[in-house]
C-alpha cells in the first residue's frame, strides 16, 4: 500500500507519462474541502479513480482537461507542462491532447452521430478515421440519427468515439457507465477496452463500480475528501483485507481447456503460467483475456532454501 506523500524524489528519477500534483480548495455543499492530490501514471495504463461522491474525482479529471484550474501544482504529460503554477504555464483545454467523455455525454443535439464525430476533426485530419470509429463502436445503423433518438448505451458509444477522434494522449472517462444497466455496462466495458488497446491510449476512468474496476483497470486511486487514501492494483486495494487467504496472485487468463469433468485454466502471472483447476460453474463467465485473482484459503506451501 503506497501512501502518496509529496515526495519530490519520485518525480525526478524515472521518466513517466503523466505527473499530476494539484492543490485547490473546493467549495462544496458541506463547506470548504482542500483537494491535495499527486500521482504519476505510465503510458498505456488504465487508471480508475474511485471514491464517494464529493471526494473530488470529477474535479481531478477536469483539472487534467483544463476545465477547472488548480491553485498550485503542476500537470505534465510526456515531459510537456500543461499547467505549472510556479512557471505560470497554462495550456488551454483546446490545446491539450485529451478526450473527455462527460457524465452526461455532452453530445451536440443539433448534429447527427456522424457530424458529432466529424466536429472533432482538426484541419487536415484523415476523414476515414470517422468511418473506422463508427465501425469499431458499431454505430453504422445510427450514424445519421440525432442524439436524442439514441439510448443511453448508444449515446455513450458515440461520446467515446468522439473523444477518440483526436487520437488524444489521455482519455478521460467521467463515470461513463453509471447510468446503464449491468448487461449494457458489461458490453460497453468491452468497447472501452477495445478502444484503449486499438489506439494505445492512456486512460483515466472515474468509477465506483467494483466489477468494472477489476475488469478494466490496472491501477486504482482511492480518493476520500480530496486526499488519496490508497493507490495500487485493484486486487491489492479491494481484496487484500476482505479475503483471509494466505496465498493469492493476479493474472490474465490465457487458456481454458477441458479435462474430463473439470477445466484447467492457465493464468499468466508476471512471466510464469499458473494452472488452476476449476469446475464448469466457475468457468462460466470467465474468458480468455480476463484478469483474475487466484487465491487459496487452505494452502500448505513447501518452503525450500535456495543457495
Amino acid at each position: 500500500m503506497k501512501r502518496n506523500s509529496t515526495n519530490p524524489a519520485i518525480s525526478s528519477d524515472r521518466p513517466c507519462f503523466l505527473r499530476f500534483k494539484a492543490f485547490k480548495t473546493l467549495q462544496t455543499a458541506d463547506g470548504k474541502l482542500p483537494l491535495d492530490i499527486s500521482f504519476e501514471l505510465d503510458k498505456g495504463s488504465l487508471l480508475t479513480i474511485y471514491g464517494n461522491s464529493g471526494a473530488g474525482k470529477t474535479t481531478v479529471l477536469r483539472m487534467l482537461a483544463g476545465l477547472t484550474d488548480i491553485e498550485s501544482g503542476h500537470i505534465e504529460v510526456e515531459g510537456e507542462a500543461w499547467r505549472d503554477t510556479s512557471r505560470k504555464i497554462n495550456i488551454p483545454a483546446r490545446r491539450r491532447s485529451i478526450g473527455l467523455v462527460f457524465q452526461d455525454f455532452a453530445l451536440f443535439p443539433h448534429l447527427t452521430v456522424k457530424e458529432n464525430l466529424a466536429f472533432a476533426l482538426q484541419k487536415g485530419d484523415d476523414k476515414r478515421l470517422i468511418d473506422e470509429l463508427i465501425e469499431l463502436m458499431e454505430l453504422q445503423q445510427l450514424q445519421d440519427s440525432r442524439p436524442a433518438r439514441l439510448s443511453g448505451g448508444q449515446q455513450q458509444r458515440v461520446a467515446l468515439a468522439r473523444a477518440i477522434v483526436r487520437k488524444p494522449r489521455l482519455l478521460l472517462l467521467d463515470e461513463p457507465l453509471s447510468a446503464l444497466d449491468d448487461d449494457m455496462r458489461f458490453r460497453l466495458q468491452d468497447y472501452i477496452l477495445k478502444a484503449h488497446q486499438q489506439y494505445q491510449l492512456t486512460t483515466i476512468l472515474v468509477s465506483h463500480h467494483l466489477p468494472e474496476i477489476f475488469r478494466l483497470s490496472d491501477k486504482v486511486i482511492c480518493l476520500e475528501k480530496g486526499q488519496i487514501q490508497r493507490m495500487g492494483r485493484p486486487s491489492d486495494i479491494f481484496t487484500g483485507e476482505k479475503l483471509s487467504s494466505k496465498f493469492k496472485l493476479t493474472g490474465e487468463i490465457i487458456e481454458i481447456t477441458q479435462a474430463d469433468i473439470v477445466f484447467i485454466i492457465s493464468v499468466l502471472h508476471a512471466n510464469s503460467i499458473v494452472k488452476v483447476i476449476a469446475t464448469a460453474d466457475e468457468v462460466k463467465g470467465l474468458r480468455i483475456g480476463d484478469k483474475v485473482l487466484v487465491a487459496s484459503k487452505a494452502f500448505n506451501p513447501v518452503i525450500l532454501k535456495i543457495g
Partner: protein
Amino acid sequence: MIDWEPLWLSLRLSLVTTVILFLIALPLACWLAYTRFRIRAVVESLVSLPLVLPPSVLGFYLLLAFSPSHAFGKFLDHYLGLRFVFSFPGLVIASILYSLPFMVNPVLSGLKSLPPSLKEASYTLGKSRFSTLVNIILPNIRPSLLTGIVLSFAHTIGEFGVVLMIGGNIPGQTRVASLAIYDEIQSMHYTAANQYALILFAFSFTILLIVYIVNHHFSKVNPLP
C-alpha cells in the same frame, strides 16, 4: 387610401434596429451568461431598465443628451457632424436602447439553459471560443435567438413614447406608424387611424404566431438533453 409612408418607415426602423441590436446583444448576453464579475448585476439591471421605465423618461434623457445645446450633442455636432435629434439615426439609437431587454433577455436565458458541458466538450475537442459559439452554442439556442429577434422587431414597430420625444413627427423622417395613428386621431380622421391600427394589430399577431409555431417545431426536432 392611407399614406403608406409611416408604415414603411416603421418597418425600416425595426429592421435596422433589429440587425444592429442583434450584433450588440449577442456579445453582451454571452458576457452576462459566462462572466463572474460582480458588476454583472448592474449591467443586467441597466439592460432591463427599459422594461419598467416610462418611454418618455428614456426619450427625455436622450433628447437632452443629443441636443446640440448640450455638451455631448454639441461634441457630436461639431466634431463628427452628427445630429441625432429629430432624425432617423436618432430614432435607431433610441430604439436600440429601448428594445435592448427584448433581445438580451431571451438570448441570455437561452445561454443559461444550455448545459455547460456542451461548451466544454467543444473546447476539449480542440475548438476555439469563436468556433464553439458559432457551431455549437448558437445552433442550440435557435429558439431563443428567434424569440429575441422577433420580439425586438415587433416591439420597435409598436414604440411610441421614445419616438415621439426624440424623433418629433417629421413625415418621411420620423413619423412612424404609431405616431401616424395618434396624429390621425388628433385630427379626427378615425377611419385612417383605424386602418393603421388594424394593420399593426394584424402584423403583430401574425409575427408572434409564427414565432410560437416555429419554436414549437424546434423543441420537437432538437430537444436539449
